[in-house]
């Protein structure tokens, strides 16, 4: 299975939301990283064939997904960024309704709904109305509905928003387990979410992929550009003004800064091993990110 994105572009008037984006995705987990407004959601909507591109196309195994219509939607699972639900429905009813819309036969749907409720720790509240749920619980219902049809292409737009740390770990594990021979694309601006599970990461800015690769590859791109420097705490602010500071840690009266810089910021600075956060900040700068 191969999902290919070919020079996908979306204009809103004179504003370019997505600009000639291309990629070829095979089974695995893909993380899409970018600041708010980078074009992630627009790209995801085009990948779901619910937003018409200005130019370019998305193909699944060589077939244009727009032309595939129901055939594509049959293998697609999608969690929109602003996940809407029916307040008067219970979690189980909502999932049954979406299962019917996905064309899943009733008996199979009933079984799958129970499975997912269990998997997402919602069994105990299955018969409670969604309007009484916390943000995290609603988000889990959203993830469950995306998984109902066991989709070959799973697209999750900001799936971790509203989830507490424990729930985020659960989701990561669930997606890692689920991916197998499927294509999972998740967008986020939280680096650690993709760092843990993504096979490939795309960093997006101003509607374009500005970097992509495995977590290690991306981190390697900034090797030799990540420094640690210990300075008196009163000087920390000055360093932050001049450099991209990825981390800021107090050690007694001193502050240890993690600086992203092409040049050695100070003779006292020591090179350190980069991580994905550093790569992300290298491309965006601390303020923009």
């Amino acid at each position: 299975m191969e999902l290919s994105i070919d020079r996908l572009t979306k204009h809103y008037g004179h504003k370019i939301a997505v600009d000639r984006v291309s990629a070829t995705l095979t089974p695995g987990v893909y993380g899409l990283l970018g600041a708010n407004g980078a074009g992630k959601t627009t790209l995801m909507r085009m990948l779901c064939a619910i937003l018409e591109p200005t130019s370019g196309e998305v193909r699944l195994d060589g077939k244009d997904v727009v032309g595939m219509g129901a055939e594509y939607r049959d293998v697609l699972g999608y969690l929109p960024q602003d996940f809407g639900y029916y307040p008067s429905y219970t979690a189980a009813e909502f999932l049954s309704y979406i299962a019917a819309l996905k064309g899943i036969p009733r008996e199979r749907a009933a079984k799958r709904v129970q499975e997912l409720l269990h998997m997402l720790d919602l069994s105990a509240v299955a018969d409670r109305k969604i309007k009484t749920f916390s943000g995290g619980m609603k988000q889990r219902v959203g993830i469950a509905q995306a998984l109902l049809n066991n989709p070959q292409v799973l697209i999750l737009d900001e799936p971790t928003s509203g989830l507490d740390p424990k729930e985020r770990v659960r989701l990561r594990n669930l997606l890692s387990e689920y991916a197998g021979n499927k294509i999972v694309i998740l967008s986020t601006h939280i680096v650690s979410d993709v760092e843990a599970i993504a096979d490939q990461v795309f960093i997006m800015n101003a509607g374009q992929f500005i970097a992509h690769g495995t977590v290690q590859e991306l981190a390697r791109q900034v090797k030799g550009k990540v420094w640690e420097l210990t300075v008196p705490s009163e000087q920390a602010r000055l360093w932050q003004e001049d450099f991209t500071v990825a981390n800021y840690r107090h050690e007694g009266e001193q502050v240890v800064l993690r600086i992203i810089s092409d040049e050695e910021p100070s003779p006292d600075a020591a090179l350190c091993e980069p991580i994905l956060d550093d790569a992300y900040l290298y491309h965006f700068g601390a303020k923009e990110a």
Partner: protein
Amino acid sequence: MELFVLEHKRLWRTPRVLICVALCFIYSVLYGGVLSFQWFVFGSEGEDTTSPYENNFDGYSVIRDYQEKFSQYGDYWTDETFQKIVAEYESYDPMERPGLQSMGDWMVAQSFLNHLYPELEDNASQTYQPLILYADTEKLTDFYGKRQWYLDFNIEVARQGGLLTEDDIDMLQEMNSQIEEPWKYEWTQGWNYLLTTALPNISAKIAPFLAIALGFLFSGEWHDSTAPLLHTTKHGWRKLARVKVLSGLSFAVELFVLIAGGMVIAQLIYFGTSGWDMPIQFIKEIAVAPWNMLKTELFELAFTFLGVIGYAGMTMLFSSLVKNNVLALVLSLSITYVPNLLGRYLPLWAQEVSQYLPLVGSPSDIFRMNVFHIFGKGIWSPYMLISVPIVIGIVCIPFAIMGWARRQKV
């Protein structure tokens, strides 16, 4: 089928819809039906009144009294029946309370006198008194001949005004010739209220509630942010649209059955079935339709039913074309309220055209002689008014489905 059941269940469980149904039932059946029968309209007039309508809360027994009283005049309307009724009114002191209205059927007798026997009016009198209080009963003869004369006179006025052609007149006279004489007669006031007020008003009462319930059917998905999700499901485009339309139509039918059924049950409790075979000419003497009260009631119910379906179709179309709930609601309400509010400012042709909109026209045209001309052929107005709204609604349905499908790109 399963999707339809789930969608329909969802519609019925929406709090807004439940509130609408409850209010519609209270307003139409309880207020417009039960309370009107028991209190506002048929409650007896008296000194010790319990409502601003100055009626007592005793409609049920008053109606029984009327039915019993007027059954004593014989089964058919003849000159003798008419004379007996007028004579009884003349023996009544108009200054007494309860007033003349409390004697029942006074309006029909007064209307017959005014229209068919105008020569009996005392034009010299300085003070107004209803003709029914002083008409010479000896001269109340040839009732059916007088009625035919009055009908011919009105038709001639319409012909001279360019409203009726010779073909129209032939058609109307042919209908009129089928009215059997003498007319069956029982107490008419109950049927009169039902067929001219209670049942025609159902349309106006259902419309706003139907608009609120169905106006959000499609647009609500944008409001709830569920549209992007639905559009990525296998059946979320056209099939869901079809299911929504079907669910909306089913809801409209169910609402109609609830309201109309409630009214019919209230009617049966209060009036029973007596008088069902009286001609509608007791309601308007120059009506040409050879129809009895029951047939007319069925027509009015069918008129409202088809209007409700047509209105549901239009409402769902608006809902599918816009993403904003308020706009969908305003557009839906405008179907009925714009013609009603602005009607008087519109040119005559526009007023006539607006009557074709669902739940705008009135089934009361059954009592009139209006004729529409389509490609030179005259068609009696009730036939047009009952059929065009449903056609409009049906035409709207595929566009509603396409409108929703067109909005697939979000």
